[in-house]
């Protein structure tokens, strides 16, 4: 009476396997969701009371961070983080896109492969190594500049920006390159057939067509830059004052690792508060990224 030929057996047991696998997958999927929800709840529960006690306005717009005096204003850090991130993107984006164009369109195969391998390697280097590089090479260089201008200090916003540029370039390059390669060859062929030069068709046709991918790379870069802590701590000087290019600054991410170990009471709660602010920052960036990626799908689809 054998009806089915199956490695599992009867229909009944097959169904049971299907169902149980379904449940296992569901649990795995839920685990990820639960993690995110738990983290969000935890951040809000531990961060919000401090912000409330200090006062939302005083916390976000206060200009003095002096835990010993119970002054917890993080405006200098927020502004420093924003300036550092956007200056870094402003410089890294054009440079990164040009490199991506070079890799995708203008380089012969072998050289391109070798370069891409090196850039991928760059993307994988731990940030503390970049920080070390910055502390040993970039800070002394900036120090020369500071001395020439008459106010030598150690760390500076400029050094932090330089480090961030180097760190986000690989991300921007590889994402942009993938986007540029994904543009159908016909677009470029059509442009060439109409009599444009190779460079014209790259910059007027291919790059605009890859726009959404390039923007995605940019947003990823912003995310990495704003979340970076280790490398900037080692070069920025970490003084919580309003940012100036050649003076020490403290970025939003820096306070937590710097002050966590010895903090207690309100000070520690305020650090949780900073964590919450950072968390919201990153969430906003992710939402933007998702929007852009979806839009990108529409354009190409």
């Amino acid at each position, binding site marked *: 009476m054998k009806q089915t030929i199956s490695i599992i057996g009867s229909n009944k047991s097959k169904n049971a396997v299907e169902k149980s696998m379904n449940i296992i997958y569901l649990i795995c999927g839920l685990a990820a969701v639960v993690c995110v929800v738990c983290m969000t709840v935890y951040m809000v529960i531990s961060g919000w009371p401090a912000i409330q006690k200090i006062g939302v306005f005083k916390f976000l717009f206060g200009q003095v961070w002096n835990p010993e005096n119970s002054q917890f204003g993080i405006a200098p850090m927020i502004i420093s983080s924003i300036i550092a991130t956007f200056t870094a993107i402003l410089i890294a984006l054009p440079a990164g896109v040009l490199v991506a164009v070079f890799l995708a369109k203008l380089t012969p195969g072998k050289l391109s492969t070798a370069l891409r391998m090196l850039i991928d390697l760059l993307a994988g280097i731990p940030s503390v190594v970049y920080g070390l590089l910055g502390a040993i090479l970039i800070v002394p260089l900036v120090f020369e500049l500071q001395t020439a201008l008459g106010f030598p200090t150690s760390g500076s916003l400029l050094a932090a920006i330089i480090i961030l540029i180097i760190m986000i370039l690989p991300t921007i390059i590889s994402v942009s390159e993938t986007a540029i390669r994904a543009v159908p060859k016909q677009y470029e062929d059509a442009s060439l057939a109409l009599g444009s030069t190779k460079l014209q068709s790259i910059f007027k046709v291919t790059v605009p067509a890859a726009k959404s991918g390039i923007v995605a790379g940019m947003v990823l870069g912003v995310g990495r830059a704003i979340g970076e802590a280790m490398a900037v701590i080692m070069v920025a000087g970490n003084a919580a004052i309003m940012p100036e290019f050649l003076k020490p600054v403290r970025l939003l991410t820096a306070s937590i690792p710097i002050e966590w170990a010895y903090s*207690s009471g309100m000070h520690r709660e305020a650090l949780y508060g900073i964590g919450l602010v950072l968390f919201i920052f990153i969430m906003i960036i992710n939402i933007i990224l998702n929007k852009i990626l979806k839009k990108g799908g529409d354009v190409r689809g």
Partner: protein
Amino acid sequence: MKKITGLLIAVLMVATLFAGCSDGSTGGADSNLSGVVKTGGSTSVEKVMNALIYQFQNENRDVKIDYEPNGSGDGIKNAISGLYEIGHSSRGLKTDGSEDGGLKATAYAIDGIAIVTNKGNGVDNLTKEQLSGIYTGAITNWSEVGGNDAPITVITRESGSGTRDAFAEIIGLEKGGSNIIASANVADNTGAIQTQVSSNPNAIGYMSFSDVDTSKVNTVQYEGAAISTDTLKDGIYKLKREFYLLTKAGATLSPVAQAFVDFVMGDAGQQIVADNKLLPIR
């Protein structure tokens, strides 16, 4: 028949395994102490504490002293909550009521705080007033304290650091160094201070004497006294702080914890303290 032989061999092998096990566990004990003690706290004491624990565990093979270096704040908090049987602190307990969880602080070592400058810096002595002037921003040029005409780069430890608290208190700054100028560079560990001072000719910083590498940085005299183990012992060099073991006041410690405290305060422990360039308390 084959099966039975196989089974016998298997049983024999397992039996040998267990025999080996019991041999190992009964053979190695040097003392009758055994157990685990959870401790943690100050990162400043890490070097000397690891040396003390290493020696203590060497003498008592069945004892394990856990040490989580996570800062004096956590050491105090967890000693109060009972998570650590012994907490480590590199500063005295606060008297403002936030840390009076019935703790007993036993000082076992004194650490000198060295004022460090770049190798190229000519200033060799600073008074208390000069130092507090530099750190509050009243003095901004080395020429004001007898050095070259160059702006001073002030480097400090982060808020909450035990070294910073002790330094601020001794040179007469406000509690926790709250009036240290905001534009000072902040370094979150001793190594970072030393690196920044050694790479910046105008820099000044302060750090634990036990970590100073005199091939990289200068140490400056404080109130006319140079820092050394001798001047710290004599009390001539005033810039120093104490390391504490925190235990519950009035409570009886576990035998292992008590033995460890006795060891630290005993001759062998105090010798290890001295070997780590700290001043033994006894």
